[in-house]
């Protein structure tokens, strides 16, 4: 991980993402493997000696201390001088616009204010790595996007490396420089948000990010015969021979005009079983000839076919991503 990078650990519940964070913070000990920071092993260091800051899921603000004392807590442990503490706490609170609330107790703050106090409490010690455990999960949906962008701006301004744990794929894709997808305690894929979305490596990543359609089939001579979907796929790059799985993004599928026939390759004929309006788009569920149901997303402006009508679908070769596992 690079200095000043924003890394998101993305996974469902039980995927080990929080455990990984607690491992870096020192609250859990690894049975095997090492945690390295700038080449130095962190293992012999207890949590309070590690140069990391942490924002807890419920924020863990000290209820008996004021906002000022919460933020000053770490500086006092470092033995900073009184004047320096006052100056740095004031700076930190100004960074998030809370300078007027420094005498308040945590229970007198709103959820967004608490989140910002928890953030600057960890940041004020200038840690090299910031660990954030679901920092936005406790906020209202409306507040989440704005707070996320603020988080990103603060990260850029301070230059600290951020590691954020989240179960929300949109949050991870929008905020992080790189995203690590965890599946049952193992790293499934690590890459930039665009790379992860466009070229998922595994079935799990394809399904978790943007709910891609996964088509199973058998590859021979550059084409994949897909019995469940009842179609033939020709990816842009030649797939390995034998059984393979491919991912096809719902928004990359086109609906052909009524009466048009589906192409022999990279296309199929089916029936619309469900149609749902989602505001910015339409979601169609199409039952393909082979029986498999495919998700298709159309922009809101399009006129979608009605439910229970036959439909022909097509897509580009570049949209077919061959999965590794």
């Amino acid at each position: 991980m690079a200095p000043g990078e924003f890394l998101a650990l993305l996974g469902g519940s039980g995927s080990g993402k929080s455990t990984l964070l607690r491992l870096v913070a020192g609250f859990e000990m690894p049975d095997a493997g090492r945690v390295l920071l700038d080449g130095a092993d962190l293992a012999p260091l207890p949590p309070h000696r590690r140069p990391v800051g942490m924002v807890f899921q419920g924020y863990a603000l000290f209820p008996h201390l004021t906002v000022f004392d919460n933020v000053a807590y770490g500086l006092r442990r470092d033995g900073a001088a009184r004047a320096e503490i006052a100056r740095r706490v004031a700076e930190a609170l100004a960074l998030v616009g809370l300078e007027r609330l420094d005498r308040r107790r945590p229970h007198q703050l709103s959820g967004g204010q608490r989140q910002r106090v928890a953030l600057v409490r960890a940041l004020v010690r200038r840690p090299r790595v910031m660990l954030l455990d679901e920092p936005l999960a406790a906020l209202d949906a409306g507040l989440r996007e704005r707070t996320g962008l603020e988080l990103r701006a603060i990260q850029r301004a301070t230059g600290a490396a951020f590691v954020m744990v989240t179960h929300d794929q949109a949050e991870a894709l929008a905020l992080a420089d790189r995203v690590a997808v965890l599946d049952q305690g193992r790293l499934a894929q690590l890459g930039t948000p665009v790379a992860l979305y466009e070229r998922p490596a595994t079935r799990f990543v394809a399904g978790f990010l943007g709910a891609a359609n996964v088509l199973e089939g058998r590859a021979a001579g550059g084409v994949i015969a897909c019995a469940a979907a009842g179609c033939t796929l020709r990816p842009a790059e030649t797939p390995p021979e034998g059984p393979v799985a491919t991912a096809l993004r719902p928004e990359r599928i086109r609906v052909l005009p009524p009466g048009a026939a589906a192409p022999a390759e990279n296309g199929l004929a089916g029936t619309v079983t469900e149609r749902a309006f989602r505001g910015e788009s339409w979601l169609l569920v199409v039952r393909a000839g082979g029986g498999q149901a495919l998700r298709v997303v159309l922009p809101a402006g399009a006129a979608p076919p009605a439910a229970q009508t036959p439909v022909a679908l097509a897509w580009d070769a570049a949209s077919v991503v061959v999965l590794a596992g």
Partner: protein
Amino acid sequence: MHHPTLAGVRPEASFASTVANGRRCAMRRCGLIAGLGFLWAPILLLAGYAFSADRIPFQWGGLSLRWFGALAANDRLIEAAWLSLRVAAGAASLATLLGGLAGWALVRGGAFRGRAAFGALAGAPLVLPEVVTGLSLLLLFVALAGATGWPAERGATTVLLAHATLGTAYVAVVVQARLAGQAREMEEAAAALGAAPPIAFLTVTLPLMAPALVAGWLLAFTLSLDDVVVASFVSGPAGTTLPIYLFSRIRVGLTPEINALGVVILGVAGLALGAAAWALRPRRG
């Protein structure tokens, strides 16, 4: 930073299992073990020496059950114990009825006039020193006898009434804790399903209260069996309860019979607590 594989991390590992904490936890465990040792040592020694044949208590004279035999043959002690059990059962039953009503009224009665005063009255016996409770109840019984001729003689009945008053306070607290938070919603759900208030009380509230009533009864029962001070004040010549008898005996000197009685009470208390734990056990769902 390198990404460690997580396969080796125990998922159930928690804060308490970390190394730095492990040492502190061991220190705390020493504190707990020392505290429990302090609480239990005299009791276990008492129980152990109950099986000693020696005439002097807490002196080992070989294994024997003779003091259990002496206990069974001690008519005055058996009589006092029997009286205490009857008083305790009566007081606990009365306290459960009154405390159950009081606890329900305090949680579900809404804001009636004098609710604060009612709450303070119900809680007062919990915090009043025993000598104050005992003396004030005795003065009440004397005043009542002067005004109405009842109670003509103090004894088991007056002890029962006094213990029922103490027990009511304890039962009310236990019932309040049990009902707080859930009673209103449950009763409303019953009403929404077509239950008239008395039916809702019988089919929903009472089963909800039942574990607290059982625990409260046991609490009031043991409280009554253990009380010396209040009973000494309000009792008369005809009302020698077990604690009054034991107190007079211990003041004179110890006998190994008392150790044997300790073993019997320990066994009964263990059974009673087991029953309470069973009644209050967490239910699934």
